[in-house]
């Protein structure tokens, strides 16, 4: 019937990283899946009445409660004895995961529900017009943290959702990127084979919000990983078991220069800002052992 479980014809922007990731996720999860979605671009462009692009059962309630709704869906499946046959995915953007949706997500993880949570991280509240979120990187220009004469853009680094997830003691936590689609799907399949709460944090470029050419989505996603700004890692039972190694990390400029949201960083005098971003990349590299040379298999 349909080749994909998120079928074409929805109204996402050209080059939308989230729509690509969402299709990869649901295709990997398969038809025996119930999807619970927070408010954001994804549910807007995929379920504008009277149409829906979803070939699996789908529910959107509010902005901050996908994890709580999913907890209820999971409990209902458990009650009817179908929890072994049907998977539940609770998905959200950065706001629905790290900010407004954080409480419900933390509660769901703490209670141990058998749900895969997915974050589509495009690093700002895109659906409402590119406002900063807790996952907006340092010095990004957004509409509520614009670059101006007095301020250099967003003043805080990304909230580390991966470590927060690991701290909840959940069995599987991973990062993924639309620049690495097969890796993403492998992780989704692995996650849904594990019982209990799982979290996959997916990096998804947004051509509109990041101000880049729509045709560059894939390359930009790859550059985020290759500069060590977005490490691809896996934690199982709290232990770092998977790391995508970067043989020769690229300088952060290669990534930043392609995006209008970082254009101000290339003004003369702002070199210090770029160095701070490079430092973040270097810290990631060290923390997660991202480069080839690794001592006695410490990952």
């Amino acid at each position, binding site marked *: 019937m349909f080749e994909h479980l998120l079928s074409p014809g929805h109204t996402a922007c050209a080059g939308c990283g989230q729509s690509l990731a969402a299709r990869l996720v649901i295709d990997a999860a398969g038809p025996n899946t119930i999807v619970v979605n927070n408010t954001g671009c994804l549910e807007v462009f995929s379920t504008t009445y009277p149409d829906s692009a979803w070939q699996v059962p789908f529910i959107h309630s509010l902005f901050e409660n996908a994890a709580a709704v999913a*907890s209820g869906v999971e*409990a209902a499946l458990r009650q009817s004895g179908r929890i072994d046959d049907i998977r539940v995915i609770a998905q959200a953007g950065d706001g629905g995961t790290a900010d407004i949706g954080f409480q419900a997500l933390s509660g769901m993880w703490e209670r141990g529900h058998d749900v895969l949570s997915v974050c589509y991280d495009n690093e700002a509240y895109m659906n409402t017009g590119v406002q900063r979120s807790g996952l907006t990187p340092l010095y990004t220009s957004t509409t509520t943290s614009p670059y101006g004469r007095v301020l250099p853009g967003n003043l805080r680094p990304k909230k580390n959702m991966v470590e927060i997830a690991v701290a909840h003691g959940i069995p599987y936590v991973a990062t993924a990127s639309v620049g690495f689609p097969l890796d993403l799907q492998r992780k989704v399949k692995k996650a849904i084979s594990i019982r209990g709460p799982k979290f996959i944090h997916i990096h998804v470029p947004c051509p509109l919000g990041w101000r880049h050419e729509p045709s560059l989505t894939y390359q930009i996603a790859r550059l985020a990983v290759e500069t060590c700004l977005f490490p691809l890692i896996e934690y199982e039972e709290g232990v770092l078991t998977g790391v995508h190694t970067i043989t020769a990390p690229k300088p952060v400029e290669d990534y930043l220069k392609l995006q209008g949201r970082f254009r101000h960083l290339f003004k003369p005098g702002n070199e210090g800002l770029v160095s701070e971003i490079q430092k973040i990349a270097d810290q990631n590299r060290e923390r997660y052992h991202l480069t080839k040379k690794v001592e006695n298999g410490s990952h």
Partner: protein
Amino acid sequence: MKDFIEGSEAIARVVALCKPGVISAYPITPQTHIVEFLAEMVAEGKLKSQFVNVESEHSAASAVLGAVATGQRVFTASSSQGLILMSEVLFNAAGMRMPVVLVCVNRALSAPINIWNDHQDSMALRDSGVIQLYGESNQEVADLILQAYRLAEDPHILLPVMVCLDGYILSHGYEVVDIPEEDKVLGFLPDFNPPERLDPADPKSFGPLAGPEYYMEIRHDLHQALKRALALIPEVATQFAHIFGRNSGGLVEPYQLEGAEMAIVAAGSVCGTIKETIDTLRAKGKKVGLLRIITYRPFPEEEIIQNLLKVPMVAVLDRSISLGATGPIYCDIRAVFQGQKPSPKISGFIAGLGGRDITPDTIMEIFERLPGSQVSDQFIGLKDGD
């Protein structure tokens, strides 16, 4: 089976008889005993239900929304701040036509923080599309829960239903309550079988975005569903009386309104006090009566007009206030008589906020003031007077 038990326990026992598959709640005084009784039943294996201990009321309502969408009967309960916190979800549930049944143990709203009884919490939900029923006694509240499931799950309704009871007065009060037998419950309440649900065998999408070209029709449908409930509620009450042998629920209850010169309109447990006061006054020859509101939303306009049209003076006793205006019930009743001939003189009184006691003296005072000039927001029982 009759038992002398706390209101909260009666509620828990009746909820258990309805066999909800998923229960989710967050504690708040004075609702706590209800969910604690239910938790105990689950722990003892007496109730086979998923009990989801969520981290806030917003999540409690969200969890039951997800569960009911997946085809399970559900239950939640709250009060005051908790009800207001879950209100976003309740508005959403009504719009999504989710038959969530919840209990509101009526408690005042902050600020100041106050854990005692008034109706400010449930009144704040009156625009939401959630059906609101007010019980006068623990028996009626228990009966209303059974009726609530029947009503909510009716395929022509499919709306959230909230059963309200006065905090502490009813929730923590002990009464003899007749808890129905299981076989009678099965005869009255069929299994939950929603027409639409989340199921991979037949994938559907819930909760779409509806633009200006679609939203208004969908909301109109919702309004019509609430109006359909006006016809179904008395039917359900009649069916209930037939199976269980007592009158509970319905839209309104007239009490001693025949030939009444003055009537009070009120909701909830205060009606017990009002009925006693009326008995005392009637014995002295005063022609007074009560119209008890049982269903507040949908608003039973016809029944109110029918019962009060010939009463020259009507006092509405609100246990809440739409701040800056009048009591909510007063506001609705006053509007209903616009253009009616004859039309009673209708005065609005505010009493019993934050657990301030309403006594027979309070009711007497209202009857004494009613013949005077018309008032719309007269506070009764203020320490410094008003």
